[in-house]
């Protein structure tokens, strides 16, 4: 059966310098969950559709800093937007995903998803990353790399093409996003504030929690 909503990985240690909240959005079936699972667990799995929201936690070192990324994975179907809209709040990074073999998933990014970001994101400086997924299916590709780059420019976002199946560029996608977030002073401050607050809180509760989201 599918994973439970409470799953997380690598969350046992609470020693990190910065903590960021990342959001994955885009049409249903473009591979948001696959990108996340590939990034988190080094394995390529076939997944059930995401229902509502799910999240995973990843600790990694980027630019000499230990980072904790809380990555929110949202359902792509329209009916679920009533649930997912609240997750834009306070996100420092947003990954907009499309499928290079399905044009409508690409056009929906500018027609729908970019508007959602504008409507719900509370962070003016929030860093965006445009991702064209499924480049392993080169023969079925209908959205060119140039088109992706043009849209990224319009959205003022970073851009990468990747494949959750072959793992191509998956780590780069999250690492580049994290690096960029760290370059923005206001976001950097938010990230460290959360970290400090968490450390303080852990002292207050006498280390009853191991820092994991479900402990």
């Amino acid at each position, binding site marked *: *059966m*599918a*994973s*439970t*909503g*409470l799953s997380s990985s690598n969350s046992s240690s609470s020693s990190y310098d910065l903590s960021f909240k990342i959001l994955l959005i885009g049409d*249903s*079936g473009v591979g948001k969950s*696959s990108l996340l699972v590939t990034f988190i667990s080094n394995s390529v799995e*076939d*997944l*059930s*559709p*995401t*229902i*509502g*929201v*799910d*999240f995973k936690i990843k600790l990694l070192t980027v630019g000499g800093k230990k980072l904790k990324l809380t990555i929110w994975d949202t*359902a792509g*179907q329209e*009916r*679920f937007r*009533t*649930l997912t809209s*609240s997750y834009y709040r306070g996100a420092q990074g947003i990954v907009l995903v499309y499928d290079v073999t399905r044009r409508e998933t690409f056009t929906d990014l500018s027609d729908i998803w970019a508007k959602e970001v504008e409507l719900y994101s509370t962070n003016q400086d929030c860093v965006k990353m445009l991702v064209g997924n*499924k480049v*392993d*299916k080169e023969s079925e590709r209908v959205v060119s790399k140039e088109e992706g780059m043009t849209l990224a420019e319009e959205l003022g976002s970073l851009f990468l093409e990747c494949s*959750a*199946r072959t793992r191509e560029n998956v780590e780069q996608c999250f690492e580049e996003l994290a690096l960029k977030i760290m370059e923005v002073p206001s976001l950097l401050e938010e990230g460290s504030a959360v970290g400090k607050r968490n450390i303080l*809180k852990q002292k207050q509760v006498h280390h009853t*929690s191991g820092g994991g*989201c479900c402990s």
Partner: protein
Amino acid sequence: MEKKRVADDHEVEPAVPVRVDRFGFVKQEQNSAEGLCRSRSASEYEREERRIRKWRKMIGVGGSDWKHYIRRKPHVVKRRIRKGIPDCLRGLVWQLISGSRDLLLMNPGVYEQLVIYETSASELDIIRDISRTFPSHVFFRQRHGPGQRSLYNVLKAYSVFDRDVGYVQGMGFIAGLLLLYMSEEDAFWLLVALLKGAVHAPMEGLYLAGLPLVQQYLYQFDHLVKEHLPKLGEHFSQEMINPSMYASQWFITVFSYSFPFHLAIRIWDVFLYEVKLPFEKLIHALRNFPEDALNPDVLLPLAYSTKVSRGLDVLKQEYEKQNGKQAEANRKQG
């Protein structure tokens, strides 16, 4: 990428027999709950047989005595259902409880019409999810096999039948669960009974625009956690965890998505008869999660010892008062 995997499986399948659990899910070495796979002792087998005989007597031939029995002895029915409907009778009993049998008899030929002649705006969305629904079950794993075809037909027919709802991700898991216990047409009418109503419509509003019933469940659940598990509730608020983060998928699929299957079907037994979600179980599951909590015979009786029903009604009224206007607005917007 899903396609490739399924195609591969299809080619390999005849040569390598897969190991499945008693519900037909392909066994994963580390995930199998060993306690449930053990062979049954003679006395257990005997007891199960007695139970099935009792149930057969209660429902009569093809369900003919069911309505009569339920009127005469509702408490016996309730008690027996809480102990679990025998698996071989589950499909029939679910249809009797929900009233979907009557819908089927009153609407001859309607399902066939929907499947063969109607087209749905959701067809592509449905197709995209078919191979992603219970891919580890033998009935559904074969690409274009009978399981996947039935699942597609039921979902497409429903999306035409109820255009306000159409197709919403999550319905596939409910339809899939039903198809493991009954025919395509029976599963369709049971879905109609749940979402549109026959005897009652326990899931009405679950998939409508704005997901009003899901929102109500989340509200009730949030308050129950705070009331019954104050320490956990406090911890959740400090960490800014709200129930939509972990519980929306439970409610949207009525536990058919991420709960262990043997537990999900026991929840369904109760849900269909008592017309309300067993919030007690969830509270209990959060309270302490010992290994045997996944055994329904341990979890359910414990769960029923937590009394939340009256609180639920109060919270529902409270929610409706607070959100009445907003929900109405959402519905119009959608």
